[in-house]
């Protein structure tokens, strides 16, 4: 019944759809810029409050080397922190789902740790790990860790009770139940969490750079804030946000590639 021409057609339609989505996203961001420009012009917002997008655009072009060379450290910290935080969160979530007691005892501890302000832990981390990548990755990990923990704990429990009974009758081990059922049931929650974590890990990396660093977009942001280099400040934030948006979007893309069996809701 499989029909190559048809499959090709489906694929090309999907590609067109993806293209449209990207265009719409760009339109949205473009709209934001236009709105920004309009607000600045119409209300005559002083440049020292919000610079005009034209100035910031010029800064983006002029300082592109500076911005790019500072993007990499931040990107590395964010991605590494994202990985570490999510691996930890997923690991803990798996523990929690299999040992109710552990969940009840450790979840408050996780909440507790999560609420320690970064500014307060950063100095301790710097003392322990020095000022290299490590403390930044840890901070980015700490920030992206919690949403994933909460969501995945919930997701791993979002299993159809009938599927649980099926697995029980098949005498599946907890491990098998996990890999054959829970994992799939948790995917919507997991991907939501990863999207949240993608953005928070970028935030985490930026914040971490306030302490103990001399490179990265966070460092640029702080410096340009204190030096009143408003257009550089905005340019740095824009680069960071664009990176976060791409990171976020790539999680969405991975979700589409992984979850192939779902009935998609009609528009």
């Amino acid at each position: 019944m499989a029909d190559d021409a048809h499959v090709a057609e489906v694929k090309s339609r999907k590609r067109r759809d993806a293209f449209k989505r990207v265009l719409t996203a760009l339109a949205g961001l473009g709209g934001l810029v236009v709105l920004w420009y309009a607000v600045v012009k119409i209300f005559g917002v002083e440049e020292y409050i919000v610079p005009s997008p034209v100035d910031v655009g010029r800064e983006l072009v002029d300082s592109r080397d500076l911005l790019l060379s500072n993007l990499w450290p931040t990107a590395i910290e964010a991605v590494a922190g994202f990985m570490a935080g999510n691996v930890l969160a997923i690991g803990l979530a798996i523990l929690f789902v299999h040992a109710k007691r552990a969940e009840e005892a450790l979840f408050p501890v996780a909440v507790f740790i999560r609420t320690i302000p970064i500014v307060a832990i950063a100095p301790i981390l710097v003392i322990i790990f020095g000022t290299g990548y490590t403390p930044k990755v840890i901070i980015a990990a700490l920030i992206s860790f919690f949403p994933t923990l909460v969501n995945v704990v919930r997701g791993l429990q979002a299993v159809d009770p009938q599927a649980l009974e099926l697995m029980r009758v098949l005498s599946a081990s907890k491990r098998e139940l996990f890999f054959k059922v829970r994992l799939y049931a948790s995917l919507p929650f997991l991907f939501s969490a990863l999207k949240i974590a993608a953005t928070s890990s970028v935030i985490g990396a930026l914040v971490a750079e306030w302490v103990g660093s001399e490179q990265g977009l966070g460092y640029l942001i702080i410096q340009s804030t204190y030096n009143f280099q408003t257009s550089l400040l905005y340019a740095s934030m824009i680069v960071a946000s664009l990176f976060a948006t791409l990171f976020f979007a790539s999680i969405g893309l991975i979700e589409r590639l992984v979850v192939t069996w779902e009935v998609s809701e009609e528009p």
Partner: protein
Amino acid sequence: MTTTKAPTAVNLDHVSVEFSTDRGKVLALDDYHSEIEVGEFFSLLGPSGCGKSTLLRIVADLVNPTDGEVSVLGGKASEARKRREIGFVFQDSTLLPWRTALQNVQLPLEVGGNKGAKSSSSPQDLLALVGLAGREEAYPHELSGGMRQRVAIARALVTQPEVLLMDEPFGALDEITRDKLNEELLRIWQETGITIVFVTHSIAEAVFLSQRVAVMSAHPGRLREIVNVPLPHPRHLDVRDTAQFTELAAYLRRGLEGK
């Protein structure tokens, strides 16, 4: 007179099940009693809500009776379940939506210490048996209701449990397919000697398949009587045209109606 008693596959010793809800208790099964022999084909017939599914779920160790004892193959139901001696076709097909038809049938081979186990019939052959050759790659949401049910049947047959619990397995199938699968099931049962506990709403199906039929009543679920079906094996579909068959069916019908 000495009778060598056949060994018991499932012993339900005056079991009762009460569910507690936020609003009060529901007595789903009241003092049900029967012994099912190894190798027997035993059916449950009764009005909707009389506790048939609950009964199967007790045998499969999915529900604990609030009263009475259950033993399966001489031990606890939980042990039998853990030894993977129990197979179950659920009333709802319960397919995993992220697995294709074929992958769903393969599931029992991948879990429960059965990895790499060879089934007597291959998953593909079983899908063909239930009329789904060519649809191996379809996901559950792409299948019709009856097709999903047939995948679930194939899944239950892919390993060879000692005790097979079937909860209205052919309910969503047309008569032709149903007849065919009835015959296939009987063949498999005879060839393998497994014990089958079968829930159905079709009196004809119960008579055609079973050696004994338990007739139940509802509110609360109670055993009314157990009826022997002395039709000789192997049976073929035309046995349904015999007077003995019609008589048995009528008798069961009267039993169900409580007359």
